[in-house]
């Protein structure tokens, strides 16, 4: 990273100023240590050191006051301290449930009692058992395919719409946007009955593809409704980000010889990388984990494209729940998404180092 692409006073690995800081921090430390020892300067030499120290006026202050005084004098350090505190807080709060989930997974079956910070027993076998009890990898694969397909559809179709909404002026724009938004007003169940009928109706045209001509038990039965349901979010996200790209860049692309669509795909989308990646990740994850349609649009068989949810729920018996397997399977199930996030994050976060939107 280069220095001028970040804000030095908010960042932490700016080597130059941290070096400077190290020069004066130890002085304060000496103070603090002396005070901790009872505040008695221990000997002549030390005494001299105190007087040499131009901050000796602070000797009679408490550590907090001193910290506050330092904070005022050196706000960067305060920001940094706040930054670290916040980061650690967020890390703890987001990761703790995962840690706990791991503990649940490691606890042998039937002993899920009083799990606090350590598992009750240790049974890493759950992570293997997951695959023995059910073909969990198959469910994962199905979900992956469905999520990928939906994400592609949503991003492509949503990009076109987002471009129109975000960058073009036309009559009826606001009503049409609201119409898109209206979809998200309804609980998914509101779509279900007509769609269930529709997807179980046999269409002649589909016969060569799906065998019996219905979409049930095919990825289509999930990809279509899920694309439609997550489309409004994607359209709004993309609209927002596309509208922020300066006209000049699109103009430049068009003069260089792209078509209007070409400018969208070559300039606007890459420049909106954070937004597009975010829309993609949000859609992917949402579809990957979607509950309602995934559950009702297949018969739950992995060979019939049942998604990961069916897999996880498969560890839930009528009266007994294999919590350790559910926990293990969800940890495993989260991994692809985590990988996706890692891959996409460079785009999400730093696709464009210095802020994309300069002209």
């Amino acid at each position, binding site marked *: 990273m280069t220095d001028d692409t970040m804000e030095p006073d908010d960042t932490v690995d700016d080597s130059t100023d941290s070096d400077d800081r190290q020069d004066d921090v130890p002085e304060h430390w000496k103070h603090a240590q002396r005070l901790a020892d009872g505040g008695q300067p221990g000997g002549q030499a030390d005494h001299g050191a105190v007087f040499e120290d131009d901050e000796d006026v602070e000797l009679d202050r408490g550590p907090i006051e001193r910290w506050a005084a330092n904070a005022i004098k050196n706000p960067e350090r305060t920001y940094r301290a706040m930054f670290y505190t916040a980061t650690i807080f967020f890390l703890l709060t987001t990761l703790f449930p995962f840690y706990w989930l791991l503990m649940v997974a490691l606890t042998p079956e039937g002993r899920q009692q009083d799990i606090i910070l350590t598992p009750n027993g240790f049974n890493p076998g759950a992570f293997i058992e997951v695959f023995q009890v059910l073909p969990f990898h198959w469910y994962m694969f199905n979900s992956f395919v469905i999520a990928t397909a939906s994400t592609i559809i949503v991003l492509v179709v949503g990009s076109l719409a987002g471009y129109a909404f975000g960058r073009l002026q036309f009559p009826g724009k606001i009503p049409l946007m609201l119409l898109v938004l209206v979809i998200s007003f309804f609980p998914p169940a509101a779509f279900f009955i007509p769609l269930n009928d529709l997807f179980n109706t046999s269409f002649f045209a589909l016969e060569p593809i799906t065998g019996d001509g219905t979409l049930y038990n095919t990825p289509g039965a999930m990809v279509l409704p899920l694309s439609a349901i997550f489309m409004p979010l994607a359209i709004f996200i993309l609209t927002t980000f596309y509208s922020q790209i300066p006209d000049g860049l699109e103009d430049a692309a068009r003069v260089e010889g792209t078509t209007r669509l070409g400018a969208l795909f070559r300039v606007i989308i890459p420049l909106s990388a954070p937004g597009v990646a975010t829309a993609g990740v949000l859609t992917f994850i949402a579809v990957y984990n979607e509950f309602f349609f995934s559950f009702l649009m297949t018969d739950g068989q992995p060979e019939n494209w049942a998604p990961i949810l069916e897999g996880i729920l498969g560890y839930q018996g009528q009266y007994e729940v294999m919590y350790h397997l559910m926990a293990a399977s969800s940890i495993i199930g989260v991994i692809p998404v985590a990988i996706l996030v890692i891959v996409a994050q460079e785009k999400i976060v730093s696709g464009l180092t210095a802020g*994309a939107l300069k002209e």
Partner: protein
Amino acid sequence: MARVQLENITKRYEDVTAVDDVSLEIEDGEFVTFVGPSGCGKSTTMETVAGLTKPTEGQVYIGDDEVTNLAPKDRGVAMVFQNIALFPHMDVFENISFGLRLRTYDDDEIQRRVERAADIVQLEGMLDRMPDEMSGGQRQRVAIARAIVRNPDVFLMDEPLANLDAKLRVHMRTELQRLHRELGTTIIYVTHDQAEAMTMSDRIAVLNKGKLQQIAPPLTCYNEPANRFVAGFIGSPSMNFAEGELVGDGLETKHFRVDLDPADIPGVGMGDAVTLGIRPEDVHLERSADSIPDSTGTISARTDVLEPMGDEVFVYLLLAEGIERSMEKDPSASADQLLMSVTPDTEIAEGEDVNVVLDRSKIHLFETATGDALRHGLTDAPERDSDTTRSEADS
């Protein structure tokens, strides 16, 4: 390779008319520079040619085709944008080759062309930098390279050299002229730099408030400005103006009078308000005015500020005593001020009382009310609409 014609182009934004009924024709292979005050509509006019802005009214022709509604990509134009508009997500090579990669050039060809273009703009060795790792001038050079790497019919360049230092600017100027000559491309150019406008253009189009004021070869604009606006705008420092009134045998301004025969000046008569214009270099110290064949009577003044520029010195003259020393260096702004330019070895000091004369052959007269030019030079009969081309105009 293409003539560009604008027919009654008007572009209105909500409450601003950016371009107001502009018609002009640019010949195939011609180099035309748009100049005018900031906000006068130069960029907007260019965008109309590029197809980025649809004119509210009027038609655009490139070559023999009407292109008013044609997409920019099909107009065969390349453009350097005033705001530079590099693609921030591409490195220099990708930025420059963007237009080529959209077409089916093979990689070697692209490589070759990009390298050549980078060479012209002196960006060798920076091809893998990202735009945000470059200085302002370097970015601007990338933008120029991006335009010249293609082979368009028409180049549109909106202040392409604004961020470059004088030396590089001269170099780029030469390169652009060479390109122009070799490719025969029509070039429309916007600049604020008088030297650029004067040296590069076949013709200069002067715009003001969205309206075309004059389109003519540079020296014509300089020597025979169509109106007071052009006279004041072209030339730096700008022309001195003195408003006056036609009297029996001359023009009477606040501080001096010039003899002339009102009958020589068509369209106005006795008592009409007429403005006199004289460029700083045509104001001479009386003591060194022997080389001027025909000069006006003496005007006495006191020197105010001296502004040495290296190769010349600007002398601000105060025409009336007792007025406060005005610091406004825009001579057209004050009737009591006269700007004179002298060579650096002239002996003159601040606060000195001097006598100056004007070179009659270089006096311009404008109708005060409309600003239209009435006459250029009081010596011979006026020779308006001269079509002298650049290389001959100095004879």
